[in-house]
């Protein structure tokens, strides 16, 4: 096949010493950027963009535009892996797509005392997800990108409804409380600027609120600060202190064993993540939530979710990393970026004097195939680095929680500030820290709030665009076969758990006892 020859050529380019060296520098930088909350992959790539001009114009021996894109993309891969570390260790999301790892990653690390396993689980599923995605990228980039063009407002709305549907069961112990949190999340998502009419909405005349309430400071507050406040009062809610972290790769082997048990879940989530990533503008974060919802929906141990279930780490992480890789597909093939980070990488292409799109494949095959080959290499490199770091990272957790608490507070505050250099985000973090504490005490589930806040805006926008396009008729959603199928799928996904619950109640069996935390 022609593709294999081109890929071999790509590897020849990517394995050029300067390219390997820059890839290594990039993934290390990316890991650091991913770990720092607030400083995300997007801003990391943006900050380093000017440097790439020197790289692209051959300031380093043997470097060219291919080296430059390998460098920028490498930062992205590092950030995809690194973003989860603080989620798992400190309950602070390093990157938007790592928010979902707060649900099960931190509990596994801290409540069950297995930080090494939690980290390793996330890394192995990241790697497998990325691998699946890169293989799909290699073989089907253009046809899939062209297919994604057909996703209009009705289809996208259906996709979002699908994501919500898989998450319906979250916090099933108290459906009314989940519903209240979902509503609060949607309300918060509505704050800001109404992009359909161009009107201000719920901002109380505050210009700075026009950018909306970003979910990163909210989650840093709800989870990071809220958890600290709650644990300060409750003496650590049964945290395992003095975790015995042995330097070794035992956790890694255990994670691989756990991965083999969940191979079907991880592979299917990786494929779903890929398609999500290809859809312009949605990318890794939405995919991670969908991945979590699916993992939970098809798990036999639903009640373990939120308490440190490994599927709750592997499911979303495979989808997120796969979507991250896939977000480069529409950018490279059609010039339509699939995520903010790939948008900045596209800006790089323009600045180096390249035009993304089909012409790129014809005029600069070395560039395209060098990039594709570097995605394989970059992930392998990041994966090895991360696995080697697992024992060291787990050691941090041996420090009693009380001692690292002040650092977490400081990192949280700096992280929210550096997101947009805005004090408003710091206030939001502090306020949501208090709200998070109170919600915890009242035993409200936090996940539905976060999901609604993340997906609410886009869901609303697509719904309204579809209704405008259909001149107000809801039947518009059944205009295309694609959206009909997706909507029906969503309805089925909502209906199944509902019917199950009703049946269980009819039989007189009590619904799963509301498990209260001690």
């Amino acid at each position: 096949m022609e593709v294999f020859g081109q890929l071999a050529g790509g590897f020849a380019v990517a394995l050029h010493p300067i390219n390997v060296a820059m890839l290594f520098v990039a993934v290390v930088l990316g890991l650091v950027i991913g770990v720092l909350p607030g400083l995300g992959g997007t801003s990391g790539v943006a900050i380093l963009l000017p440097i790439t001009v020197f790289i692209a114009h051959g300031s380093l021996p043997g470097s060219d535009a291919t080296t430059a894109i390998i460098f920028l993309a490498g930062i992205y891969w590092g950030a995809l892996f690194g973003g989860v570390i603080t989620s798992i260790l400190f309950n602070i999301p390093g990157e938007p797509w790592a928010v979902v790892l707060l649900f099960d990653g931190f509990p596994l690390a801290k409540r069950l005392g297995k930080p090494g396993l939690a980290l390793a689980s996330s890394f192995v599923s990241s790697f497998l997800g990325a691998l699946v995605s890169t293989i799909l990228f290699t073989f089907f980039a253009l046809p899939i990108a062209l297919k994604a063009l057909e996703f209009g407002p009705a289809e996208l709305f259906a996709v979002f409804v699908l994501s919500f549907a898989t998450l319906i069961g979250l916090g099933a112990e108290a459906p009314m409380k989940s519903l209240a949190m979902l509503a609060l999340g949607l309300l918060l998502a509505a704050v800001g600027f109404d992009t359909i009419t161009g009107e201000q909405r719920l901002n109380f005349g505050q210009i700075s609120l026009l950018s909306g309430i970003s979910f990163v400071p909210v989650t840093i507050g709800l989870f990071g600060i809220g958890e600290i406040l709650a644990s300060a009062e409750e003496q650590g809610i049964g945290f395992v202190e003095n975790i015995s972290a042995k330097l070794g790769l035992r956790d890694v082997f255990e994670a691989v064993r756990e991965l083999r048990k969940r191979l079907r879940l991880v592979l299917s989530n990786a494929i779903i993540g890929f398609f999500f990533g290809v859809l312009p503008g949605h990318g890794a974060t939405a995919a991670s939530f969908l991945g979590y919802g699916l993992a939970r929906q098809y798990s036999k141990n639903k009640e373990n979710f939120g308490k440190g279930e490994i599927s709750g780490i592997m499911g979303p992480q495979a989808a997120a990393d796969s979507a991250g890789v896939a977000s480069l597909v529409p950018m490279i093939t059609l010039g339509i970026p699939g995520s903010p980070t790939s948008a900045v990488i596209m800006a790089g292409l323009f600045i180096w004097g390249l035009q993304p799109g089909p012409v790129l494949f014809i005029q600069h095959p070395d560039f395209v195939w060098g990039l594709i080959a570097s995605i394989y290499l970059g992930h392998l490199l990041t994966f090895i680095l991360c696995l080697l770091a697992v024992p060291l990272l787990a050691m941090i957790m041996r420090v009693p929680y009380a001692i690292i608490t002040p650092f977490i507070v400081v990192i949280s505050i700096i992280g929210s500030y550096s997101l947009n250099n805005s004090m408003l985000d710091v206030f939001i973090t502090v306020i949501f820290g208090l709200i998070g504490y109170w919600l915890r005490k009242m035993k409200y589930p936090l996940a539905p709030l976060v999901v609604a806040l993340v997906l609410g805006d886009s869901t609303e926008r697509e719904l309204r665009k579809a209704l405008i396009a259909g001149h107000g008729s809801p039947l518009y959603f059944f205009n295309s076969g694609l959206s009909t199928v997706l909507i029906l799928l969503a309805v089925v996904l909502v209906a199944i758990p509902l019917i199950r619950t009703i049946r269980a109640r009819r039989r007189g069996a009590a619904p799963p006892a509301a498990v209260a935390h001690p």
Partner: protein
Amino acid sequence: MEVRVMSRPAIRITALLAAALVTLSACATANAPSATPTSSGSATAAASVQPTHPVEFVISTAPGGGSDLYARAMATIIETKKFSPQPVTPLNKEGGSGAVAFQYVYEKTGDMHYVMITLNSFFTTIITQKLAFKATDFTPVANLALDPFFLWVNDDSPWKTGQDFINAAKENSLTVAGTGAKQEDEALFRRIEDTMKTKPFTYLSQTSGATVAAAVAGHQGGVVASVNNPSEGLTLYQASPKKLRPLCAFMPASPTTPIYSTLPTCSSQGIPIDDYFIMRAIMAPPGLSQAQQQFWIDVFKKVYDSDEWKKFMSDNALQPSFKSGLEFRQFILQYQQLHQDIATKFKWV
């Protein structure tokens, strides 16, 4: 039950929390006095005619949009050619179609360590959001290029000319897409509607120029046309199979970029609009001294004259147009009036 005597670990945690808070407030107070020297620093900076610390290059859109791309290209040229004694760092302040960025820069009155890239939202947003200031309050630096509009359709469209499109638009309300609501794309469609007496367009607001082009290419939501800039439509125009096709250019003469050189003007096809472009202009906070304003004009003139910017403009089919001083002021007044008229006519305010 809730009230209980604190156990020793709890006390330890509380103490540490308190320590953390003390550290934080110490940081905050440490910042407070340092704020005073900065403001007095800008007082001395008022005397100096060039930046004395790093400069923020504020971008009013999200990463990856046209404006962001142009600002990053300019900042890169300034950095690599050392046109400024201090680094010029791009910073995205997106939100409210530019309102957040405009407010942010407006509040930096008299401080030359801020410059901002603006497009037509600089007029539309200030008018429609009823912001507390006017476009003319800012210190104008320069316009570096004009980005023309083309009329784009899907390649499988039956229309061959601008006139075909207008005839169809007189028959039915066509669904069209553009970036944002009550912004330049919608302004142009409303002008077409008004000038050509077509049925009102059904306007679908998209989040970026790239997604507008994608909407036309994929028939998303029944979208049949857009007024994308040449660079936004280029990849899908060159795609194989071809997905997009320009019908005409809203320009006084055909574009000079080779790939578009055969494209007729819209006025030659009976749509007499040739005076509407997206400006790619640099603004500074209000109240800069003339010398400070001149410093930035010189920097951006050097950018404009650089080979890198010339290549960038030709790659992206931008119309070279350097305006500063009185000429730029008149341009600003003219565009402010034009957008005010559209906003009034279509009841955007």
